């Protein structure tokens, strides 16, 4: 039986900088999204800044797409990146919901 070998496609030399910068921005923008969401919920920022937070999540998604395309990720990894992006979108909502419920149960 011949086993199928996994082969990585070469990355173009001019793409490395874009890959590193976009990969870093994934977490920087993701951090801004989560930070703005949490700050609005605890009253440190005004409510109108929330769309700005979601704007940062869209930028996060774009950076993931850019990074993945230039790296030539395979289908499986591309799906993993989509799952990670959706996870990041839902994470602060889920955490805030749980935190808030526990606060309410214990303080009111």
């Amino acid at each position, binding site marked *: 039986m011949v086993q199928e070998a996994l082969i990585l496609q070469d990355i173009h030399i001019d793409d490395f900088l874009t890959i590193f910068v976009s990969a*870093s921005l994934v977490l920087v923008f993701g951090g801004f999204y989560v930070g703005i969401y949490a700050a609005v919920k605890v009253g440190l920022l005004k409510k109108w800044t929330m769309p700005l937070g979601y704007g940062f999540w869209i930028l996060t998604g774009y950076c993931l797409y850019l990074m993945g395309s230039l790296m030539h990720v395979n289908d499986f990894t591309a799906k993993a990146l989509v799952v990670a992006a959706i996870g990041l979108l839902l994470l602060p909502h889920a955490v805030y919901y749980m935190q808030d419920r526990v606060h309410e149960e214990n303080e009111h």
Partner: protein
Amino acid sequence: MANNYLTTESKKLATWYFTFAAIIFGAQLLFGLVAATQYVMPGFLFEIVDFSVARMIHINALIVWMVFAMMGSVYWLLPDETGIETVGIGLGKLLYWVFVAAIVVVVLVYLLVQVGPADQTTIWFINEGREYLEAPRWADIGIVVVVLGFIYNLYATGMKGNRSGIITVLMADMLAFAGIYLAGMGYTDNISVDQYWWWWVIHLWVEATWEVFVGSIAAYGLITMIGAHRKVVEMWLWIEVAMLFGSGILGIGHHYFWIGTPEYWWEIGALFSALEPLPLVAMFIHVLYDWGKQQGAQEAQGKEVSVITNKPAFTWFVLQAFGNFLGAGVWGFFHTFPQVNLYTHGTQFTSAHGHLAFFGAYATILIGMFYLAVQGKNGIKVMHATKKSIWATSMIFGGVLGMTVALTLAGYVQVLVSRAQMGATWAGYFDGQAGIWFAQGMDWRLVMGVVTFIGFIILIQDLLSIGKAAHHER
């Protein structure tokens, strides 16, 4: 410093652990400076303390001081969390001296003997040869005995006293922490098999059990320093445990890309590595959320004063949330996929990530614990920062960040020249290191290392003197 305000033997023992941890922390930085100087001046201490020896002590001291500070942190919080004195404290004190003696002997052997013949005597008495875990086998066994005693103290106290959520998590986590160490103690002459198990210790420690440990310490800190609600903090801790273990355990796959393991590890490593930053982002929200909530509640009552009862420690705790996100998250994520890791593996990128991740995730919060101990030891109700604490924090954090940026630039040159252009050849390796950007990166790393070391000296001065300052509330 007097121990007048310490009411339990457990907290006194914790201060012993913190003191020795601080000494080894200094040794770590000193030997790091030696190794950094050797990149700039290769003849420096040649055949006296060669690069291989300086680097080995630098890295081993890092692990050891953190383990000491972690054990000290547990002894510090045990009486607070359980409401009783640590069970078997006499054993704890005895094991402390055994551990200190073992570490001193190991370091002296590293420095004075350095290398031995390629046989079992070297493995047993000089150096086991596994990066990060070079301790000879007799010391390995000694460490296991010490940690078993420590775990007995933790379990016996947790079962006798009040077992809070933090204690329960620590009990489970410390068992895994100790158990995983055993995976790095076997012997095999197959390097792939050896590396496979060795990564269980290195990866599963730093990206699973140590992360859970700092989650527990952060929970304790938020309760003691800003009065965060225990139920909220502990619920959050369980979420962190689930997320950290859920992504961290199989995240080990990103170390199995190139060591001879099957190719399915590419997929496993890529998937779980993509998820690994999520708990780090979540930990960041946790601190922000609790701080904002507590400060908001205080201000709603018309009180403008800060809710923080230990400013220097809380600063380090906040830096932990930020540094963990930056060092483990950002610097880890950009070279974690196999497609790009093929080029970055073994370059200074790894070193940049290692420096900022270890510092951001662990050193910061453990320094925070040093300040909590100083506060407790001096009976201070609200501890304010001093000029020295501000200088120390700025210089250490700025220095490590500077080193990271310098190493990243050097690593980028290696990726382009040594890997992408010259295909990881022998000539490519040397051409990459001969480039001006690499050389200047190494120069700046040394400069920033010196800044970090000066910051450390100021930190020690501050830890020794801040308790006597008059501007605290007592």
